[in-house]
């Protein structure tokens, strides 16, 4: 229920805003309401200047073309047409989709598995394990990329040695077939802990009485997890799917670092962000890169708004 809507229609003093919330008398809020604007203005100014305006300027830039002869001319949707018909752009898009379709479910299953174990308290040293699993969240992606590049290095890397030792000879983790699986492993290493902690927090807030009732009904542990707990944390899982999808679309740092180690393994259009990076910064094709950035930014804003709409529909957004 919208408290702002109430405010514009309600005339009776002392009426409360949204039910169930401990707001003070409406009259007090109305008298001081306008001063709230001063509190939100600094953020809004920064938001407009450094989020909205750059996106607007990128849209503007994307509608023009700069030529050696003739300067900058308006070209309408030409840059978008060129980007969207460029096979190189799409191969990056398809690659991050494959990445996401594999990485996100695998990671969420692992994260949910451990979150459940820790929530139920059915493993020892749960607190210690929880802390260890979360550590990669604090490690910069650049450093993570460097560490994994050393570990997977095809000549000297310990993982290559290990593969040889167990009978897989001539394994090249940097070959075009194994590169993407390696990046998936790196991403799982980086993000499972974060996802696990969010799921764990959500599982903890499932009321104890519900689980106890299920136990009294002789529900098995499996039934409790799948039929009782899982449905109650579904919104958290959906939020994580949104968040991780955006992360997958943004894939950039890890492939770029691996490219430093093994240039042939990662093409300049390996992911959409790499494509935009090399188009804009590498080739100075600003207008074309802007079109790519607008397309990608638009998709991400859409995902963000969709997640808000989803949560609002479920009545979970304050």
């Amino acid at each position, binding site marked *: 229920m919208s408290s702002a809507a109430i405010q514009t229609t309600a005339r009776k003093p002392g009426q409360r805003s949204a039910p169930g919330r401990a707001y*003070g008398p409406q009259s007090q809020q109305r008298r001081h309401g306008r001063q709230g604007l001063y509190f939100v203005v600094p*953020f*809004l100014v920064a938001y407009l200047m*450094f989020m909205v305006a750059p996106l607007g300027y990128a849209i503007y830039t994307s509608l023009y073309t700069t030529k050696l002869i003739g300067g900058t001319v308006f070209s309408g949707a030409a840059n978008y047409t060129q980007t969207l018909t460029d096979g190189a752009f799409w191969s990056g898009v398809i690659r991050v989709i494959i990445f996401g379709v594999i990485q996100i479910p695998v990671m969420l299953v692992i994260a949910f598995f451990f979150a459940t174990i820790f929530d139920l308290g059915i493993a020892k040293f749960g607190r210690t394990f929880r802390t260890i699993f979360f550590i990669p969240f604090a*490690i910069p992606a*650049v450093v*993570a990329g460097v560490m994994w590049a050393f570990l997977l290095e095809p000549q*000297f890397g310990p993982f290559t040695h290990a593969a040889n030792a167990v009978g897989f000879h001539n394994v090249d983790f940097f070959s075009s077939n194994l590169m993407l699986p390696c990046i998936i492993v790196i991403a799982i290493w980086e993000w499972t802990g974060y996802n696990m902690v969010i799921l764990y927090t959500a599982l903890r807030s499932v009321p104890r009485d519900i689980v106890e009732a299920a*136990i009294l009904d002789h529900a098995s542990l499996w039934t409790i997890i799948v039929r009782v707990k899982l449905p109650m944390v579904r919104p958290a899982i959906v939020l994580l799917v949104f968040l991780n999808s*955006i992360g997958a679309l943004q894939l950039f740092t890890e492939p770029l670092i691996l490219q430093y180690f093994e240039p042939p393994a990662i093409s300049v259009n390996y992911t959409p962000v790499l494509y935009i990076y090399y188009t804009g910064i590498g080739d100075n094709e600003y207008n074309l890169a802007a079109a790519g950035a607008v397309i990608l930014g638009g998709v991400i804003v859409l995902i963000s708004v969709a997640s808000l709409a989803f949560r609002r529909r479920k009545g979970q957004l304050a």
Partner: protein
Amino acid sequence: MSTSALPARIGTGSEIGRETRRETRRRRRLEEEARTIPIRTYGLRRGTVTILTLLCALFAVFILIPIAWIAINSTKTQSNIFETFGFSFARPFVFFHNFSLLFQNVDGYGTYTQWLANTALYAALGGIGATALAAFAGYGFARYHFRGSRALFYFAIGALLVPISAITLPLYLTYAKVHLINSIWGIVLPSLVSPVGVYLMKVFVEVSVPTELLDAARIDGAGEVKIFFRLALPLMVPGLMTVLLISVVGIWNNYFLPLIIFSQNQLYPVTVGIGLWAQRAQNSGNAELFPLVVVGGLVTMTPLIALFLILQRYWRSGLLLGSLAN
């Protein structure tokens, strides 16, 4: 017993001053125990707990492998990094030599300690600024209702899930026009925009700053600004810590934006510096660069891991708030 975790836990955050740390820890443990159902009620077979613990240990090994590798190899020379087994130490032990390289301009492209100082500066300015803006805005949205406040709130958090890297190229294009390329403000100013921070602060204020308290102060004649700084802000400290941590880590780990807006190496943050070294180590043949990348990586991640271990409960409350809607 009530298990709606949020108000209970946030309440404990603001009462910290009134009980000793040991009492807090003890109460937390008791609370946690009260919420955990004893294992035996599930009727598990005897070996299950052992097997599950082993699985946890296995995943912990997976997580710790790269960290162990970087710690061990920070003590090695370049040839030993490549020629000796990655998970054993080797002679000569040159950690302190490698560490001293961090203070030198090894290949003429910059000094690690300067980059670390840059990172710390950007993270401090951006983190504090982002937290301040989020605190003001979150409080404004939570405790005032003015014309359009709801619409403005949705406008602000429309970008809730939009990471800074999504607008990095647009920022770069804009900076080229307004001369923010190679300016530290180019990285600090966009870091001030934290829709997640605003959202977290709004939720936090709603559950931990009572309207009655604010109204009482108004009746006593206090001004709005004074009410915010004297009454509301002290109650918001745990939330502020969380937003500060999230912002600092975000700036500390950011790579894409500084990579494209800085072309002068004395402005680089550590992430860009290490990336540059990793690239040059392949091509330049300088025998010190790989050890430098390794020890630099180790020193870069250590402060954040320490910060995270020390301030764990703020992390958790932040993630809790972040997933509040669930």
